[in-house]
């Protein structure tokens, strides 16, 4: 184990931080609007879309450490881009399962010419990967998809969806889930686009006998579960890294405020109650970073169960710690913490969203215990 960042890793971190500061400077008190221009081209141009994707598919096959560095800086800088949905989930799943023709899609994602969105979670999924009820029934040479996907990140701006649907089995069974490349609109596809509270674009999508051709299926029919689990486990670690960036920035902002704000003739940071609270926040932050590193470490083994368990442990920890740090940050900012013009509230909204994504703390504690 070596905890010191290499030169390349430090340079990567600095360049993502610079990107975030330049392209996503903090702006509060603004009504979020669908379709606002993003900076995907820069993300691709910098080569970050290739991180975590295998070399066989055109990626740089970098370790999960590089992925965590990129995401942490995205969190710190409140970069709201569909990176996890497009690259870590959809593109990676195709890279692991896809036919040679489908790997060309992954290359286009890496180049920044194609955006994918990962449409897996349904209203009753809530992190339990096998809880897929969306069905795919054979029709002539293709399939007809029926079901409803919820909160699909990046769908409004995506070129294609990667949709999980059952070709066999019942919800709750890991066998029978397949993956399909599906257009983002068309006959039998109804999308409700919206912003999420943390400034991302997402959609609820209803499929009503939407037809996809034979070559839309990605990977083995009914056999996508193991890959789904793997891409989601890595995505969970990536989201935890992002939350860590939010949390560290939040602590920094709060510490700075406590040293500035004066009441009763002294800085509020002089009060022992405030000092102890900030110390507790720092403690949770350092434990969260440690938890993330333990999850990153698990990605260097080949034990898939250990990787799932580590991802769940980290998600459960950071889900709770993120809320603790950010809620206390707002509290210590007093009235100012409630103003949308001020940064802390924005970090809070992001950690709430990360906590709810792919299973919350309670779910992941349960999965962690079950995988013992």
């Amino acid at each position, binding site marked *: 184990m070596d905890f010191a960042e290499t030169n390349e890793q430090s340079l990567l971190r600095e360049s993502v931080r610079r990107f975030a500061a330049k392209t996503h400077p903090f702006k509060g*008190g603004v*009504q*979020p609007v669908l379709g606002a221009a993003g900076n995907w081209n820069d993300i691709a141009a910098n080569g970050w879309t290739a991180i975590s994707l295998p070399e066989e598919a055109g990626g740089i096959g970098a370790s999960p450490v590089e992925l965590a560095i990129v995401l942490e800086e995205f969190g710190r800088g409140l970069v709201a881009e569909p990176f996890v949905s497009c690259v870590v989930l959809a593109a990676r799943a195709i890279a692991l399962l896809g036919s040679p023709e489908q790997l060309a899609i992954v290359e286009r994602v890496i180049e920044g010419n194609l955006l994918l969105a990962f449409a897996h*979670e349904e*209203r*009753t*999924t*809530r*992190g*339990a990967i096998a*809880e897929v009820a969306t069905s795919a029934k054979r029709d002539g040479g293709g399939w007809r998809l029926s079901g409803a996907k*919820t*909160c699909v990140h990046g769908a409004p701006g995506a070129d294609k969806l990667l949709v999980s649907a059952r070709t066999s089995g019942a*919800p*709750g069974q890991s066998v029978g889930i397949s993956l399909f490349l599906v257009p983002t609109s068309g006959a039998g596809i109804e999308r409700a686009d*919206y*912003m*999420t*509270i*943390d400034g991302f674009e*997402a959609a609820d999508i209803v499929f009503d006998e939407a037809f996809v051709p034979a070559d839309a299926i990605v990977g083995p029919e009914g056999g996508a579960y193991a890959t789904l689990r793997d891409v989601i486990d890595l995505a969970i670690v990536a989201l935890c890294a992002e939350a860590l960036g939010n949390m560290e920035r939040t602590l920094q902002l709060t510490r700075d405020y406590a040293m500035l704000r*004066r*009441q*009763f003739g002294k800085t509020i940071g002089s*009060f022992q*109650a*405030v000092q102890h609270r900030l110390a507790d926040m720092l403690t949770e932050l350092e434990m969260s970073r440690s938890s993330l590193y333990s999850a990153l470490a698990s990605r260097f083994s080949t034990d898939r169960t250990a990787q799932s368990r580590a991802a769940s442990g980290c998600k459960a920890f950071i889900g709770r710690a993120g*809320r603790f740090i950010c*809620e206390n940050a*707002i*509290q210590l900012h*007093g*009235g100012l*913490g*409630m*103003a*949308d*013009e001020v940064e802390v*509230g*924005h970090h*809070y*909204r992001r950690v*709430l*969203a990360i906590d*709810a*994504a792919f299973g*919350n703390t*309670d*779910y992941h*504690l*349960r999965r962690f215990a079950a995988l013992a």
Partner: protein
Amino acid sequence: MDFIPDPAEQSFRDEVRSFIAGALPPEIAARTRLDFRPRREDMQEWNAVLYRKGWSAPGWPKEYGGTGWSPVQRHIFAEECAAADAPALSVFGLQLAGPTIYTFGSAQQKRRHLPGILSGDVFWCQGFSEPEAGSDLASLRTQAVHDGDEWVITGRKIWTTHAHFADMIFCLARTDPEGKPQRGLSFFLIDMKTPGISMRPIITIDRSHEVNEVVLDNVRVPSDGLIGEVNRGWDYAKFLLTCERTFSAHVPKSRRALRRLKEIAARERQGGVPLADDPVFRGKIAEAEVELQALEFAVYRTLSDAAGTSAVGTILKMRGSELEQRLTGLIIEALGPRALRYWPDPSWDASLSNVLLHPEDEPGAMGTHLFLRAATIYSGSNEIQRNIIAKRVLGL
């Protein structure tokens, strides 16, 4: 001490429930159900309905328009209103300015201001906090200078809830810059239309427009705008903060939130299992309900403590606010990723809300959760509440 049940309480509850069912306009209840920030029109209309019944100020002395109900009856009434999705009435007139005026005001001030508060025609806001005076309220800098028959007031107030639609503001201002800060403050009632008053909206993290920054620039207030005596304003403010205490436990509101939480937990499933059947989540609901039950009795105890000497009154705001936050947290947890959708609050821009809203989408749930992060900050932060308990109750 006894807890012999009073059979009259059930018939009172029935009477109240039946009145509300007949008198609460359905469109108002439907809007309140969505849990966005309350509209002035809705609060005003419901206030008028209650006023015609004589029920708009149950906690006031009968001579000023109160109902003469017992603490339990007042609680039952508040609970039934909340449960029926009646809009919460603006507290600034009925709970704060009104009691201050009938306790310390002149006969003329009572005649002038109390009817409008009772009827709900006149909306109030509270000019206390300033950019440099939050927890340390006594250090506030807004100045009031006597000029002939008038006071000239200059300063800046912040986090002023409802200032953008209020008719009147009650303000603490400094009338004596020398000596101890608390001894130099006075309490003023100011018409919001007075020249020199301007404001800007402050959008909060729930993306609603509820609070403002109010600037007073040489605002001329007639002498009858002063409540009581010069330099006694801090005493009146302390009285007002004690009034806030019992309602700030928000038991009826939390009971409504608990009911909503159970409905959502019954509806939302993971696979085939409703969240309500998940032992971990069910346990969390139970913990919240146990706390609520205790808090309700803490409120009864406080309302029965006429001398105000019991320690229990000092815990209400703190535990009440923490419980409110716990319940909103459980609600958004129960909704899962569905809670993440951004539903624009019409208070920021009415044109934003052109989407048909379904109650079961709980469009106001996340906004309410975000807004109520302020519950542990406003009305005396929970850190200050702990200071008060340590000093005044425990003598530390």
